[in-house]
């Protein structure tokens, strides 16, 4: 039992910080925000060379073969500096392929992910916006061999720069098991996961302007897209794989959100030390300092839940659902409150585009719905704990 980072993880953090200081300071973040995909292929390539992109990918496929606790270290730092990047999306696509892909699929995608020459993302949500198997209603036309998709996937993160989409859909065959968390939602057909390349016939992406311009998402239109046996992720139980992907997504978003919350807190602490009103720094007043102390308590508490959840992905799969929900529920609401209060504690300048604090506010609005908001996860926790007791 050891609830601390290793020395190596400390070095990793230092290396990522140095990379971000050098290659993606706030000026670069603001420049990327104005580009169509908020993405720089050069920066991404460099980040891959630095080692962060392929961190989770096994060494056999060109990655570093490290674990989710290591990945959390990286995400805290990219969150802290609001780095625009498809890092979470690609990690989740890689996880899908690692968990459920064939050797050929792994061979095809994992090395390209690791070297930064391909980007992947999940395409799970539909218009119903339900983050789980129960939200997957898209049914394929199938001739037994090839599944043909006609429909839309919504809120697809990094849709514009992705090279491959992990698409969740349903076959025409009824599943034996009731689907997902909620039985009886009337969704028909067995769940399937398939890989759809950006350049496959029938794929169209419509970007949607983001409130948080360091992030992008879009709608994926599938107009007769064909998923053959070689493109299906068939090696495991798709329900379990999808659940893991969404939980890992919650944990990844919590890690990036936590980093961003700490970034916002640090900016505001500095502002409270520097800004003088009525003859003293505003950080002297309890109205300011107590609020900042509460934020710190929240970030520390989130860390505890997050680190356990990340460790559980590699070491204790049965604990992942509960810890993913514990961490994301705390993050979703605490980060929202931190974003709002940090802007308010900045006074009028907090409302200007010139100051960076508003970027953290917008990030908090991005992070909340990702993989389910606070109430979603609290409802889920209630279901989990009623089942356990």
């Amino acid at each position, binding site marked *: 039992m050891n609830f601390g980072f290793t020395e190596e993880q400390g070095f990793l953090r230092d290396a990522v910080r140095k990379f971000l200081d050098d290659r993606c300071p706030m000026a670069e973040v603001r420049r990327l925000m104005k580009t169509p995909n908020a993405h720089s292929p050069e920066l991404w390539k460099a980040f891959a060379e630095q080692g962060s992109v392929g961190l989770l990918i096994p060494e056999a496929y060109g990655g570093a073969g490290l674990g989710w606790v290591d990945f959390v270290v990286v995400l805290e730092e990219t969150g802290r500096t609001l780095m625009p990047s498809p890092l979470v999306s690609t990690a989740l696509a890689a996880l899908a392929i690692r968990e459920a892909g064939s050797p050929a699929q792994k061979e095809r995608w994992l090395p390209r992910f690791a070297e930064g020459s391909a980007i992947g993302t999940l395409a799970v*949500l539909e218009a*119903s*916006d*339900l983050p789980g198997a*129960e939200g997957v209603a898209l049914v394929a036309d199938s001739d037994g061999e090839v599944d043909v998709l006609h429909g839309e996937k*919504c*809120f697809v993160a990094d849709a514009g720069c992705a090279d491959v989409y992990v698409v969740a859909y349903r076959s025409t065959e009824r599943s034996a098991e009731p689907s997902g968390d*909620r039985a009886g*939602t009337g969704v028909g057909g067995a769940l399937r996961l398939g890989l759809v390349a950006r350049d496959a016939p029938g794929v169209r992406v419509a970007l*949607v*302007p*983001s*409130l*948080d311009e360091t*992030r992008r*998402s879009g709608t994926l239109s599938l107009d007769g897209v064909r998923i053959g046996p070689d493109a299906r992720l068939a090696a495991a139980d798709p329900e379990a794989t999808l659940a893991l992907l969404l939980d890992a997504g919650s944990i990844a978003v919590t890690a990036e959100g936590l980093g961003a919350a700490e970034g916002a807190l640090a900016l505001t602490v500095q502002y409270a030390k520097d*800004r*003088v*009103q*009525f003859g003293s720094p505003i950080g002297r*007043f309890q*109205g*300011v300092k107590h609020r900042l102390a509460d934020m710190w308590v929240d970030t520390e508490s989130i860390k505890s839940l997050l680190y356990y959840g990340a460790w559980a992905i590699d070491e204790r799969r049965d604990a992942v659902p509960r810890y993913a929900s514990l961490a994301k529920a705390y993050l979703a609401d605490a980060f*929202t409150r931190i974003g*709002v209060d940090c*802007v*308010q504690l900045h*006074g*009028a300048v*907090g*409302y*200007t*585009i*010139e100051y960076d604090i*508003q970027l953290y*506010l*917008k990030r908090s*609005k*991005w992070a*909340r*719905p*990702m993989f389910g*908001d606070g*109430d*979603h996860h609290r*409802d889920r926790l209630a279901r989990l704990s009623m089942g356990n007791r």
Partner: protein
Amino acid sequence: MDFNFTPEEQAFREEIRAFLDAHLPDPMPEDDPDFLRLWNEKLRAKRWVGFNWPREWGGGGGDLIRQFILKEEMSARRAPALGLDFMGLTWVGPAIIAHGTKEQKAEHLEAILDGRSHWCTGYSEPDVGSDLASLQCRAVREGDEYVIHGQKIWTTSAHFASHIFMLVRTDPTVSKYKGITCLLVPMTTPGITISPIENLSGKASFNQVFFDGARTPVSNRLGAEGEGWKVVMGALANERSGISEATEMLQHLDDIRSLAKRARRGGRPALEDDRVRRRLSEMEIRVEAMRLTGLRHLTDQINGKPSGSETAINKLQRGILEFEMSELTLELLGSAAQHQGELQHEALAWHGTVIGGGSPNIQRNIIAERILGLPKD
């Protein structure tokens, strides 16, 4: 205590309703300047612009109760604002009526009512923040003119204003409140430059205004030299009942209820979610508390006993409401909260409203010190 209206007041309400039935287009043309100008002329003809201003200066000579009825009816139908020059009508005009010379009244009041002028107000300065009275912008008298050097910030609408109603320091040797003077300065005065400040939605809603030796005649001084603080505090006391803010909140509540009716959460209609329903009720409670507290303030004002806490209580309730409404809106939008859109931008815009004119913590200090008598920090 009596919340009944007199038959005359009821008749006035009916008159407004009939007017709106006859004249308010449905649907309303959005942001159409020609329509707004025409609308203003119609209201002017009824003397409903500057409704409580004296009739001799073009106002309606109306009382506060009728003004409340007028506002309530107008906003219930979402009619355009009562008048085109918001700052002029709300702060500047009443200050000129109270402190202005005959020439100032003739020059400005009718222009405000007609919407020919467009006022902005210059109080805040960089590094001054909540401690307004420590302002540094200097005006030095040279003969018949004041020469102004300095800077204002957070000046809303300065980029399309015709005039600025501003505070300057004319005497740095006396106590900070005493050395302040109020000036009425055309924005076309040479030596004024405007630099817009973009807000977090990327819109230029306020500005920095630089004064680099701008000269304005002494006749543009409102009130006596050194009396500027008093003039402005009087102006800020106008319209502080909070009725208008409550009306605005009521419209927000309507909007969010509509959203809740069509939204779904976790696969079921959002209104079936106990928490969503109760949060809406909680907002209804706070909005109605704001509205009724505004009526209590109005009564105090009519009886000549304003409590001095009107702005503080209003801003604190409003701050809570704006936050709750913003969060519920975004939660109801679900993943669509990540997109740009009108609702999403409104859910950020309140940050500017709530901070304007003193943060919630400043309001809490005011209540704690002035009303509860707690020691100053």
